[in-house]
């Protein structure tokens, strides 16, 4: 090794950084984009279910809200760098805005808040734990923030609901976030690690990491 490259390598190792590489940014963004495509395709079918559900007892729609929060948890589980949940969910919301969203530009605020909900959970574990319980919690965090945003902020769609209905909705979104965004993302990350496509990420060994510790 030449002196310069040895020094550079040493520096890189000691920084071992929270810095995002180009590949982190692009993969995170494309995960968010792919998540958008998947949820778009899924909602084509889900609309048949959701319209009657919505007409019957609207808070039940919170039960499939978790689909929107997959990018936040999945992005973090793969990239494992601070900000990944926030960034991925913000990109997903931007994508939704471009495709045309019923929430207008407020979809960006929802996206940022949902990402923040997941981000805070990972931060609470100092970005060192990416196991199943933490994933479920992060999903629930995203879902909780989604429910709060929709129920209590001026642009929220449930702002005018009665208190009990708001509570029901928030519980549903948190549950949905935990199972759909948390659980499915955790499973997907393990599956992706097995295929070898994560070889350049810290998550490359996700498939063999312990489930609970």
């Amino acid at each position, binding site marked *: 090794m030449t002196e310069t490259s040895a020094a550079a390598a040493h520096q890189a190792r000691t920084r071992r950084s929270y810095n*995002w*590489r*180009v*590949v982190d*940014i*692009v*993969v995170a*963004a*494309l*995960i*968010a*984009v*792919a998540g*958008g*495509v*998947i949820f*778009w*395709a*899924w909602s084509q*079918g889900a609309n048949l279910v959701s*319209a009657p559900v*919505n*007409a019957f*007892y*609207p*808070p039940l729609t919170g039960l499939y809200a978790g689909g929107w929060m997959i990018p936040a948890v*999945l992005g973090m589980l*793969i990239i494992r760098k601070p900000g990944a949940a926030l*960034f991925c969910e913000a*990109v997903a919301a*931007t*994508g939704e*805005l*471009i*495709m*045309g*969203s*019923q*929430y*207008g*530009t*407020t*979809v960006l605020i929802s996206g940022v808040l949902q990402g923040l909900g997941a981000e805070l959970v990972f931060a609470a574990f100092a970005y060192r734990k990416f196991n199943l319980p933490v994933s479920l919690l992060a999903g629930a965090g995203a879902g909780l923030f989604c429910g709060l945003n929709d129920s209590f902020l*001026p*642009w929220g*769609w*449930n*702002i*005018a*609901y*009665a208190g009990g*209905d708001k509570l029901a909705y928030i519980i549903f979104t948190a549950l949905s976030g935990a199972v759909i965004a948390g659980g*499915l993302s955790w499973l*997907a990350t393990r*599956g*992706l690690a097995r*295929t070898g*496509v*994560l070889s*350049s990420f810290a998550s490359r060994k996700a498939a063999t990491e312990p489930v609970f510790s």
Partner: protein
Amino acid sequence: MRQELTLRGNQAVLARANPLAKFTAVTLITMVLALSIDWVSASVALAFELALLPLAGLTLGLLWQRGWPLILAAALGGWSTTILAPDSGQILLDARIWSISEGSLELGLGFMLRGLAIALPAVLLMSCTDPTDLADALAQKARLPHRFVLGTLAALRLVGLMAEEWQTIGMARHARGVGSHGNPLQRLRATLGQSFGLLVQAVRRASRLAVTMEARGFGNARRTWARASVFTGLDAWVVLGGLLIAGTAVASALAAGTWNMVFLSQQ
């Protein structure tokens, strides 16, 4: 299915304005409308927005094509507000969890109109704003970190490709005997498998795209911009227009006595 992310051919006035100015105007309108649920401010804003369609290069026909799901969503939102909002005034219907009163009906109607008045300017914004120009403005004018802005822009370019690949993977798995038919559980499993297939391709493609970008020198702290994002006199008019719409909406609602601040109406 492949959606074009450039707006070649849209010669409308608003297509020439700086995306940040347009975004500011839309945000102004959105935030003001969000403050109140009433049919007057929402209707006034909606009327203005519809009048602006030609400036964004849209026609009513085009809007209907792109926007009917939004109308459906707004209607559903109005419905849920109507049945779930706390009742006031005369009760019109009471069936266990559903209850409709004069007050909640008015709230629901206002909510529906407000939903449309918030969704429409975003549709206007995106139909006359090229994502490339938006990224230029975000990185050069709003000073967001260019690595993240351009990385996202490059990934968004692949939306169309991902949508096509989704369809191809569906057929390819069908050819292996994984049906898109069957009971809901089977269909869910098939969709999850298809999603996983798409994610693998997304990570592979993104990794290769990152190599391409890095090999072209991307990732340095500094770069130049071949095309400068600029503000012009038009942009001042765009922001003023946003102010005017927001202001007129509030003033009309106050004058009509329907202004109804969301935080105050909750109890």
